[in-house]
Every structure is written in structure tokens, then in C-alpha cells.
């Protein structure tokens, strides 16, 4: 593949206590492309994506082996500060989880704790830009100081995306971002993902194969903690090389 590789994982094993959740994952994720992770429930795709910004550090019993390399650095080496890593690798969660604060405060929180804006004007501008990029600004510009939780589900999720891009990460991880949304809100988010892929490397976990087919350029299929197959999205869905992938996309397992 000609494109630059942003993330690569080498022999990654993940354990929850004694239980092995992921086994020997070797995956390369290209820069400024959308990579989708598909597979049946419990296959480890969410576990995998949470390894990429060390979100699993918050789970005491979770243990990780192997290497995850982002920009030639192993993110699990001792020199890497996970807080710094998460400023570079943003995350959007399955259920929209805005802070119980105003829309403005939701977006401003990240820049504020990282000291990204030097003045209030700069912060205003940054918040506005982030909301524009997340395609939310037009809808809510009159009520930017109203609570973020008063928005609809789809708007809340876009608010969470705006909140993430406000700290200008290089990578955005999305863990089933549309699973709690209706089809219309989902379509809006999918368009947004296309738009964001121009500037960000995006990794998205999804239950919907149609969604994976629509938004991503690369698709990886996980099954029972193993990475079965990875390749160009059109290839995976038209001519998968593995039997299990074939079974999954045709609905025989799942």
C-alpha cells in the first residue's frame, strides 16, 4: 500500500484477568483514511480500539502485551504519558456522553485543560470552528450556552465529535458512534466522518456492515479475539479471502 502508516500493532495480546480478549493482533492503519473494525459482539474490536489511546489503563485487571506503534513510538513504553497520548488520539464513545454543562463548556473543556487557547477570544473562535467542523454550528448557534444534554441524540454525538476535534488530535477513535442513533442522525454522522477523514486518521468500530462499507477505505474483521482478515473495504465485502469473513458478511455467523 502506498499510503503512510499511522498506527501499527505488533503481536498485541490483551487479557482481562486470566481471560484472553485479543490474540496476536497485527494491524496497520493508514494515515488520513477511515479504517473500520467489524465483527460479532464480544469479538474484541472495542477492546482493540480502546488500546489505541490507552483507555484500557483505567481498567485495573486489563493487561496488554506486544507493541502498538503510533508515529514510530511504542505508546505502551514507559516514556509515553497516557494523558499526552489522549490529546493526540481522541475518542468518541458509543453512547453520546456530553458533560452536564453548556454546549460551549463541553467543547471548551479540552482546549482549556491543555492550555490551547491563549485568550478568551481565541477560545471562542476555537469552539466555533470545532462546532462548524462537526457540522453542528448552524443548528445550535443561538443556544451555545444551553446545556449540551438538551440536544437530540445525534446532535449530542456530533457535540462529542466537536469536543474531540477541539483539541486537534491526529487520530480519532470512534466506538460504535451511531449505535444509539436513528438512521437520519446516522447518515449525518457518516457524512461527517467522510469530511473528517481529510484531516484525521479515523478508526471506527461498527456493528453495521453497510456502515463499514459506506464510510471506510480499510476494513478489519475480528472474530473471537482474533484478527481474521484485513484489507481494502471493497475487497473485503466483495471477495473476502477467509471463510469466516465470508460467513459473517453473508450473515451466517454473528
Amino acid at each position, binding site marked *: 500500500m502506498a499510503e503512510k502508516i499511522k498506527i501499527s500493532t505488533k503481536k498485541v495480546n490483551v487479557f482481562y484477568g486470566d481471560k484472553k480478549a485479543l490474540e496476536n493482533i497485527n494491524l496497520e492503519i493508514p494515515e488520513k483514511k477511515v479504517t473500520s473494525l467489524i465483527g460479532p459482539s464480544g469479538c474484541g474490536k472495542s477492546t482493540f480500539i480502546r488500546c489505541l489511546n490507552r483507555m484500557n489503563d483505567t481498567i485495573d485487571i486489563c493487561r496488554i502485551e506486544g507493541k502498538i506503534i503510533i508515529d514510530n513510538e511504542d505508546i505502551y513504553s514507559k516514556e509515553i504519558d497516557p494523558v499526552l497520548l489522549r490529546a493526540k488520539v481522541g475518542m468518541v464513545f458509543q453512547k453520546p*456522553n456530553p458533560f452536564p454543562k453548556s454546549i460551549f463548556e463541553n467543547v471548551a*473543556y479540552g482546549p482549556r*485543560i491543555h492550555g490551547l487557547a491563549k485568550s478568551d477570544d481565541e477560545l471562542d473562535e476555537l469552539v466555533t470552528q470545532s462546532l462548524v467542523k462537526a457540522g453542528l454550528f448552524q443548528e445550535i448557534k443561538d443556544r451555545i450556552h444551553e446545556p449540551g444534554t438538551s440536544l437530540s441524540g445525534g446532535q449530542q454525538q456530533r457535540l462529542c465529535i466537536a469536543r474531540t476535534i477541539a483539541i486537534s488530535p491526529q487520530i480519532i477513535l470512534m466506538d460504535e458512534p451511531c449505535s444509539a442513533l436513528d438512521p437520519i442522525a446516522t447518515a449525518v454522522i457518516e457524512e461527517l466522518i467522510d469530511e473528517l477523514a481529510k484531516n484525521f486518521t479515523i478508526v471506527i468500530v461498527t456493528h453495521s456492515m453497510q456502515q463499514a462499507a459506506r464510510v471506510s477505505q480499510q476494513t478489519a474483521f475480528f472474530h473471537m479475539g482474533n484478527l481474521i482478515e484485513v484489507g481494502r473495504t471493497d475487497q473485503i465485502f466483495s471477495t473476502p479471502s477467509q471463510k469466516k469473513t465470508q460467513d459473517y458478511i453473508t450473515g451466517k455467523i454473528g
Partner: protein
Amino acid sequence: MTNNLDRVELSLVGRKRSERLFKFYGFLGILIAFLFLITILYSVISQGQKAFFTTFIKVNIFFDSEIIDPQNQRNDEDIRYANFNKIITESLKKKFPENLNKNDSKELSSFISSSEADYLSGFVVKNKDYIGKYKNMWLLASSKIDVIVKNPEMEDLDEEDRLISDKQLGWLNQIRLNKELKKELNKNFFTKADSTEPEQAGIWGSLVGSFLTLLITLVLSFPVAVAAGVFLEELAPKNKFTEFLEVNINNLAAVPSIIYGLLGLAIFLNIMHLPRSAPIVGGMVLALMTLPTIIIATRSSLKSVPPSIREAAIGLGATRFQSVVDHVLPLAIPGIMTGTIIGMSRALGESAPLLMIGMVAFIVDVPTTFLDSSTALPVQIYLWKSTAARGFVELTAAGVIVLLVFLILMNGLAVFIRQKFEKKW
């Protein structure tokens, strides 16, 4: 299919009945609780309200210069130590023209509270013009007169069961007929500390004592408990040691309060030599007692904050501490406040640990600093209850009312603070 529905319908009768029964039991429970509440409030208020008013007797005082200032020198010191009891007795005698013997005048003089002689001496020192003149004054009646006035049914008792003799009762009725008797707000009760005479005793001293004590308790326990709760719940690693701590904190919340009193006695008084009976020590002991309650409340309300909020903050690159302080703690404040209310209410009503550190003493001065000797409201109530004089019965009930009002005010304040933090979004 129909068969099936029939069965469902049949089972529905039983299900509905058990629901009705449960509702009935619930209602019954509420009713019983309500009846108890009414009973308590009625008995306390019907007794206690009597102590809010006290009896005064109008006496035409003759400031006899022969008694006050026989040498006619108008010397402050001499006037102050003159025999004003005699002044009162002589003036009272004038109400009753019949000849009174020595014993009679003694009985008559007991109509007026012993504090009034001091009051008159202070009055005369400031107003020397009155020496040798008459002045109509309302003097505080003694407690036994007050009790008879407030409880008219006692007049029907036999002489030996009554607080006053037949003769005294006769005088009292005559005073009443002359409209020289009035009931007024009991200022002593609201401004003074304890006294051996019921009509001179007040709740203010122990109210201030309770306030100072609780202030210390709150200042010590709230920040420490919240910090400990946040640390244990959010920041500390989960291991055998923190598990051990958790179990022990839960156990501490159930330790009888008198144990904390003993601890305070052993450490604060005997080792640290802090002053006995002082609000600062009482506050420290009650803070120890309140700590586990607030820690447990803090932890459980932190636990109830959805983890998605934490993930959102951490996902944005907030440190664990930032995620707690900026997002989780504000959402937990209402729950923490509830725990604090419970802890502080318990501390306010607590007397056992205070007995251990000497806050049970007879203290006649209102405390002004955290180091002064003092009592607290429940201890004062206990002290009055165990005093023999009849006049303290009403004071005890009135003390309970004051304690309840204090409690309601304190809880009201906490509820107010809680609602300020409780954002409805």
C-alpha cells in the same frame, strides 16, 4: 389460547390482591409513623410552650432609704450591697394589710425570683433619685409561683402535694384579682445559660455551645471526609489494603458514639491536654464520629455518577484528578450533602461522647470562644431532666423544641445548598 388467557386471569386475582395488601401495609406504616410523630410533637409542644412565657408580679417598690443608704452617702458600693431582698419583702407586705408574722413574710418573699434583688440594686445604683420613693415595677416571679400560674389544675391538689401553701395560694389569688400578674416572653430562657433556679435558667448557653461544637465538627470532618472518599473511590489503587480500609470505615460508622467520647477523653484531654468541657474538644470528638458517615456517602454518590462522564473527560486527555474535580465531584455534591446532613444531624443530637469529655457540667456563662466551658443542647436537656425542681419539667420540653428547631434550620440550609448544586439537566 383461550385456556391460557383464562389461567392468566385466574392468577391475576392473586397478584392484584397481594399488590393491594402491600399498598395497605404501606399506608398503615405511614399512618402509625404519623401518629407517633403527632404524639411526640403534641407532648413536647404542649409542655414546652409554657416555658417560653414566664410570670411577672407587679410590686409597688418602696426604695427605703433606711435600708438602702442609712448614712445618706449615696455611695455606689454601699448601695450595691444593701439588703434588697428586704426591700422586696417589705414592699410585698404592703399588698396585704393584715398582720403578717415573721414566717409569713418569709413565705411571701419566696414569691419573687432571687435574681430580682440584684436587678433592683443595679437599678438603684443607676437611678439614685428613686431612693426614698415608690415605683411600680414588674418583678420576675419565682418558679413555683410560675408553675402554679401555668398549671391551674395544681391549685386543687392537697397542700403537701402542691408547691405552695394554702396561705401562699390565697395571696396569689388576691394578686391575680388585683390584676398584678402578667405573663411575658421568657427572656431568660432565650438569653441565659443554666441556673439552679428554673425561672433564671436559659437555653442560649447550650445553643451557642452546640453551634460552636458543630462548627468545629463541620470544618474538620467535611473536607477530610470528602478528600478521603474521593481518594479511596477514584484515585487509590484497588488492592487488599484499600479493601481493608473500606471495611474498617464501614465498621467505624457503626461504632457506638460513647467509644469516640472515650477516645477523646484519652487523647484530646489526657494526652494533648486540651481544655475540658470545651466546644473545640466536643467538635473534634463529633468530627471523628461523623467522618465515616460522610466518607461512605461521598463514595456511594461518586459511584452513582455514570462512568461515561469519567471516560469522556479521560478520553479528552484530562488527568484522573481533573476528571474527578471538574466533572464527577460536581455531580456527586447532592449525595455528599445528604450524607453530611445525616452526619451533622446525628452529631447535633449526640450526648454520650460529650459526657465523656466533660461537656455535662453546670455552666452558668454563655460560651464566647471555642475554648470556653460549655454544654450542648442534648446534654442541657438531659441535665434539666435530671433536676428535681418542678420548674425544669417545662424547660426540658422547651429545650427539646429548641433542639428540633435548630435541627430543622440546619437541615433546611443543607437542602438549600443541595438544590443549588442539583442541576436538572
